[in-house]
């Protein structure tokens, strides 16, 4: 593609799309409207998006195009978050619980995975968490395992990617290998130290009371 006639079209499609739009979808939209004699490839679209995005790098702009859930989407820059939080203040978005995050991480890395597998890793019944995650559309049923009882298999969705700001599932950081964990002296993460102290004191108190 030598000319730049399609730049505003591509940008407009990304801007107007309700969900992240893929390069393929942009290409399809153009071909549907202008016919398949049009000389534009998926690669041209990817390059065009990069080109378009250079202009939004300037801090004059409050938003830029992001690669998210396999597609493109305009999103505001994080610097403005405090002002934009005002818009969401009525519908205060609740954060996911620790249990949901744990369950999601197992599903994300192990997918497709069954409920018994998830529960054996977490050591807790996970019915309720699974049903909440399904309703939030962060996970879905992706099939059935061949194992005994043919349990349902769960996997993550595009909404999951969007929720965590990921482009594709392989963008997830790699979990540490068991071997690596073996070397690790510091058993629990630093982040929980304060909490642990807290609990320790409480428990000692409670146990002391008992004795």
């Amino acid at each position: 593609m030598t000319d730049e006639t399609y730049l505003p079209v591509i940008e407009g499609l990304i801007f107007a799309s309700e969900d992240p739009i893929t390069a393929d979808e942009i290409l399809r939209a153009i071909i549907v409207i202008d016919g398949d004699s049009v000389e534009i490839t998926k690669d041209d679209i990817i390059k065009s998006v990069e080109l378009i995005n250079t202009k939004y790098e300037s801090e004059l702009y409050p938003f830029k195009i992001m690669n998210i859930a396999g597609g493109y989407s305009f999103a505001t820059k994080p610097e403005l978050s405090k002002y934009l939080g005002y818009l969401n203040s009525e519908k205060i978005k609740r954060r996911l619980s620790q249990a949901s995050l744990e369950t999601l991480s197992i599903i994300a890395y192990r997918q497709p995975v069954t409920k018994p597998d998830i529960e054996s890793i977490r050591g807790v019944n996970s019915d309720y968490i699974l049903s909440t995650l399904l309703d939030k559309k962060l996970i879905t049923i992706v099939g059935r395992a061949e194992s005994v009882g043919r349990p349902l298999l769960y996997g993550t969705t595009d909404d999951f990617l969007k929720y965590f700001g990921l482009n594709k599932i392989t963008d997830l950081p790699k979990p540490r290998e068991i071997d690596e964990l073996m070397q690790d002296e510091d058993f629990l993460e630093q982040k929980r130290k304060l909490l642990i102290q807290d609990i320790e004191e409480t428990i000692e108190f409670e146990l002391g009371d008992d004795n």
Partner: protein
Amino acid sequence: MFKIKLNSFEGPLDLLLFFIKRDELDIYDISISHITNEYLKYLELIKILDLEQAGDFILLASKLMHIKVRMLLPREIDEQGQEIDPRAELVQQLLEYRRYKEMAEEFSFFESEQRKISYRGNYNLDEKSNFDDTELLLKNITVYDLAKAFARVISNLKPEPVHQIKQIAVTVEEQMEFIKNRLLTDKKVVFTSLVETIKTKIQLIFTFIALLEMVKMHIVGVSESESFNDFVIYSIEN
């Protein structure tokens, strides 16, 4: 009783990890009796608080006890002639759980980052045209949606209405006979008592039509009854 932050533990494995850290235990050489004791003490608290996940906590307690017993017995030997450490499975499980727990922290970080950005809100476009594409049609619809739709349809299902077409087992002529026969025994009959043996609406209607027919034909006459909303039928002697 005061609240302790039991809810900070996402389950029994999380709690075990906490003990291991707190007591600086070597995860590969856990003192099972020590940790079981700690764990059971804790379990008492959980029972008092009636924590929602108590069942899962108790399940692990029984596992720990099981391991404890096996530790006292002669070691089982695997195919390679190696002794099997009764704790091995638990250790593996703890490490596996911990891996995902760490990743949950990462997810939490991504979540915070993502909360700092907003996507486009409203925008205006009023162009309309039709476009057919099954792939788009089904985008974001999964088996779960499908199954849920079915579950909903089925649960909303009212008992199937039975549409039976029955031969109407009654005619005006038959009901005229019925009234005539009745008036042979009683000279006067109150309408409500006439129809009290009649079970179906359709028969009732036909009886009423028959009565009107007979009045028209001067076979019977009707007069007011003492009771409100009723009337007396009498036969007209020729």
